[in-house]
């Protein structure tokens, strides 16, 4: 579903992403795990056409990132870090606009909005504004924005950043229940462990390890992803993130 080869991005001579290869298969939840500044968001922004790669190639849902960005855009949903609503907008109106921008008719957009809100357990929230929601509800509303056009691949950038532990666990179960291809970035080790079928550990713009959480722990003969990170990079994750 996603296939990237030697993807690189430089900002004014500084290499943020230094040649990344990755494959994400259909219905897989793949987590991109790394400290802040490791190149996670930059990679995600390249794969979602928000940023042009300096070099390298990638296809997303069968569309080439560079030669067919509009094909990629039609096939993907993207939930950015930190939300995607202005606080006083109406959730229903924003979702309808989003659906219409993907080419759905007004009637179809309305139908989809009702459906997607049910899917994230926010049925009847059309006339609420994001400012009136709890943190967990607001993130689910963001998820709805990424899902309203039923994309083939969903990109989530730090989906549970800033949520309390209960809301995080709750959101994980929603994400797992989506049954679609998901590529997400996170700097939470427990999130990668609990949510992802496969984890790619990124550090300094390179993928330094990959595998299922169980494989990673087994291969490095350690008990937690924390220790895997420490073994692969020589530094503990918490310290780098701070």
């Amino acid at each position, binding site marked *: 579903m996603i296939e990237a080869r030697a993807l690189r991005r430089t900002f004014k001579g500084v290499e943020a992403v230094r040649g990344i290869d990755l494959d994400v298969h259909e219905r897989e939840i793949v987590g991109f795990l790394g400290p802040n500044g490791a190149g996670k968001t930059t990679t995600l922004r390249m794969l*979602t*056409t*928000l*940023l*042009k790669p300096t070099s390298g190639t990638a296809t997303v849902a069968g569309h080439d990132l560079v030669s067919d960005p*509009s094909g990629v*855009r*039609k096939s*993907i949903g*993207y939930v*950015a870090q*930190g*939300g*995607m*609503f*202005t*606080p*006083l*907008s*109406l959730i229903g*109106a*924003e979702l*309808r*606009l*989003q659906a*219409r*921008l*993907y*080419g759905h008719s007004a009637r179809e957009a309305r139908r989809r909005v009702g459906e997607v809100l049910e899917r994230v357990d926010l049925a009847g929230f059309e006339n609420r504004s994001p400012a009136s929601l709890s943190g967990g509800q607001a993130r689910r509303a963001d998820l709805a*924005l990424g899902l309203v056009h039923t994309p083939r691949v969903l990109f989530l950038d730090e989906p549970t950043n800033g949520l309390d532990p209960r809301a995080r666990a709750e959101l994980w179960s929603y994400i797992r229940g989506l049954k679609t291809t998901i590529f997400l970035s996170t700097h939470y080790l427990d999130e990668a462990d609990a949510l992802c079928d496969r984890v790619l550990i990124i550090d300094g713009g390179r993928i330094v390890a990959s595998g299922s959480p169980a494989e990673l722990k087994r291969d490095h003969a350690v008990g937690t992803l924390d220790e895997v990170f420490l073994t692969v990079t020589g530094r503990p994750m918490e310290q780098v993130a701070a």
Partner: protein
Amino acid sequence: MTAFVVAAHYLRETYRHKFVIFFGVVQPALYLVFFGPVFTGAGIGDWDVLVPGLLMQLALLTCGLTGFNIVFDHRFGVLERLRVTPASRFALLVGRVMKDAVLLLVQAVILLVLAAAFGLRASLPGMVAGLVLVVAMALGLAALSYAAALTLGDELFAPVVGTAVVPLLLLSGALLPMGGAPTWLDVASQATPFRHVVDALRALFAGSVEGLGWAVVGVGLFLAVALPLATRVFNRENA
């Protein structure tokens, strides 16, 4: 097509916060109350000289500062969300600009009705033609305002553009006709499209088409520069 969807969305948003519509008219209306009697009483001109200026002021202060809206969209991730959709960035820009043009038209009509109550007597076809001219010019103003907001960023937009509209307003001769200006000021004023629009509006309100050609050329050139420039900024990857 997409542009209409975007425009309709933002118009509904604006309608939901109705005070925004009236707030835009409050400032020129205050000029009707507190400045109009002085202006007309001092023999500078009648209401048909003042009100065209107030239309220009309205356009500069609403469409000229509309970039504010995108500053918030940018801050809250809305812009990014729209940019990953298949909608073209040109359509996203044009939709917003069309919203601003429609909003300005509504506000301008409210202002003209208020002005009529104060004593504005002007040619009706002249006023209609004047509205078309002002709205056409405002398309360029709004597009530039969005481009400025994306280029300057959250912190700089308000002080820079808020300050830039002041000389533009004064140079247009909107508040006091430029007849008595020294040559250098008159030349500077003639170099802006806004001066020609104000002159043409005053002529139109008086039932004449004097200077209309220059105003149309001015607005045409302004749009020919503003729209492609704004489109380029919208297409920039990091905007």
